[in-house]
């Protein structure tokens, strides 16, 4: 319950911090950190326009997408406090429920019958498919290391001791940040700020959504970001007492947001065809983590 509340809290300002960071390093003042929230509130109040091409899929998909993200958040623990749902192998459930949301966002994009949305859907389907193994192997490696298979158990049993484990922790943080960037369609895979139909992935899938549905999708994106932030935070706060863990959680979220902002400021987006290669690289990093864990456990004979 605590984790749910904290992730929701973090989601309120997470994207705002990313945008603020980007604004500051470009010499802007930029909108306040609650601007994304204001946008969502405005959308919740507004009416909608639906295309006559679309079917009921288009109407239900945003709700299912949102629900899937919330459901996934329920699984994520924060520090010592378990997620609302926690069982062995819950990260399989986590990944699959997110995949369900993605399935619906993809078909809702195809429902519009527009080639832009089709383009976005095609990209999203491919890249998220490619990114999945990296997540599973990273989590699998930690499952191997700790002997547990639920988020909460893995993180609480995780303790860093040797140099190798520090290296692994860094690597895993990197992989998770990158997965978070891919899943949220941010740089260097996708650039949500370009506002050009032809170059975007996620943004172009929701070109036709409006009003409440669009608000749901945008807020789900904020939640998703904060959720990955929470997973990353767990690396650092899993064994700390609550009084220390809570501020540290927000500190990690803050840093993650700043890093995301900086990452988006100082490099150009990849060429679309290079994205697949980049994601492969990520998978090999996760394999590196796996071998590291083997090394750590002395299974390399």
């Amino acid at each position: 319950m605590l984790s749910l509340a904290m992730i929701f809290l973090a989601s309120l300002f997470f994207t705002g911090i990313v945008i603020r960071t980007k604004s500051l390093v470009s010499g802007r003042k930029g909108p306040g950190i609650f601007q994304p929230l204001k946008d969502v509130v405005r959308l919740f109040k507004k009416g909608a326009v639906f295309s006559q091409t679309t079917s009921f899929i288009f109407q239900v998909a945003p709700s299912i997408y949102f629900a899937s993200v919330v459901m996934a958040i329920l699984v994520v623990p924060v520090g010592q406090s378990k997620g609302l749902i926690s069982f062995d192998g819950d990260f399989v459930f986590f990944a699959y429920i997110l995949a369900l949301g993605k399935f619906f966002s993809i078909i809702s994009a195809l429902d519009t019958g527009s080639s832009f949305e089709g383009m976005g859907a095609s990209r999203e389907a491919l890249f998220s498919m490619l990114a999945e193994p990296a997540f599973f192997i990273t989590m699998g490696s930690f499952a191997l290391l700790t002997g547990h298979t639920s988020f909460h158990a893995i993180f609480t049993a995780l303790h860093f001791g040797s140099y190798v484990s520090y290296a692994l922790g860094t690597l895993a943080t990197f992989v998770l940040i990158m997965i978070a960037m891919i899943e949220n369609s941010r740089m260097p895979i996708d650039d949500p700020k370009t506002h050009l139909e032809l170059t975007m992935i996620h943004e172009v899938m929701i070109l036709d959504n409006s009003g409440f549905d669009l608000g749901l999708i945008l807020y789900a994106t904020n939640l998703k970001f904060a959720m990955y932030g929470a997973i990353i935070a767990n690396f650092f706060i899993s064994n700390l007492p609550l009084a220390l863990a809570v501020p540290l959680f927000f500190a990690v979220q803050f840093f993650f947001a700043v890093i995301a902002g900086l990452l988006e400021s100082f490099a150009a987006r990849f060429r679309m065809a290079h994205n697949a290669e980049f994601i492969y690289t990520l998978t090999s990093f996760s394999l590196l983590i796996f071998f590291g864990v083997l090394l750590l456990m002395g299974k390399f004979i």
Partner: protein
Amino acid sequence: MLDNLKILFRQGKQYIPDVRTAAVPGIFRGRPEILPARVNEAELTALCPTGAIGAAPVRIDLGKCLFCGECAFVFPDKIRFTTDYNMATNERQRLVVAEGAEMPVRLNPDLIRKEISDYFSGSLKLRQVSAGGDNSCEMELNACGNVNFDMGRYGIEFVASPRHADGLVITGPITKNMAEPLQICYEAIPDPKIIILAGTDAISGGIFEGSPALDRRFLDRYPVDLYVPGNPVHPLTFINGVLELIRKRAKQ
């Protein structure tokens, strides 16, 4: 990385601290003033390339004015352009600056629809449609979002899809070939929505007024929420106009 930091340091803070009071460099031609001197009014009205100057009393319609300044050069003691860039209003009549009735061009608060501040104060997404025109207004609207004017800090942004937008910004005199796309775009914006006319071309047709290649019937069908004069509109005129429109007002 060091180079980046150096560039960043040189970049520093570029934004204009307060767009409401910022001064425009150089000889900006903003809201004109009509001085009490006596001149040949027929000559004066004939001078204007768009017929924006009317006689008896001398008046200038900012919705038609190209801000070329010719009248002020020929009749410097009759017409003077000030640097006041606050020229946006929501009432077409208020764009006419007449001799003797000198006052800043402001919005008419009675005409602002109530839902505008309810919905959009603090967050407004706009969809711009370029309907003819010469691209200078578009460049100035783009400039609104650059590091200097930084319109994004007020939560006002231009978006790609009209579905995501709350308002339509029209630039250009609305050509025949763009009339239908403009209509489609307007219909694609969810309610409630606003219409902003940016630039003299959009407000009256400007130098293109009367061209047979135009079709301005769109403007007869829907009410306009904001007129932003200028050729092209200055970013400060636009930002201040929109901020004034969506500002939260105390309940009367």
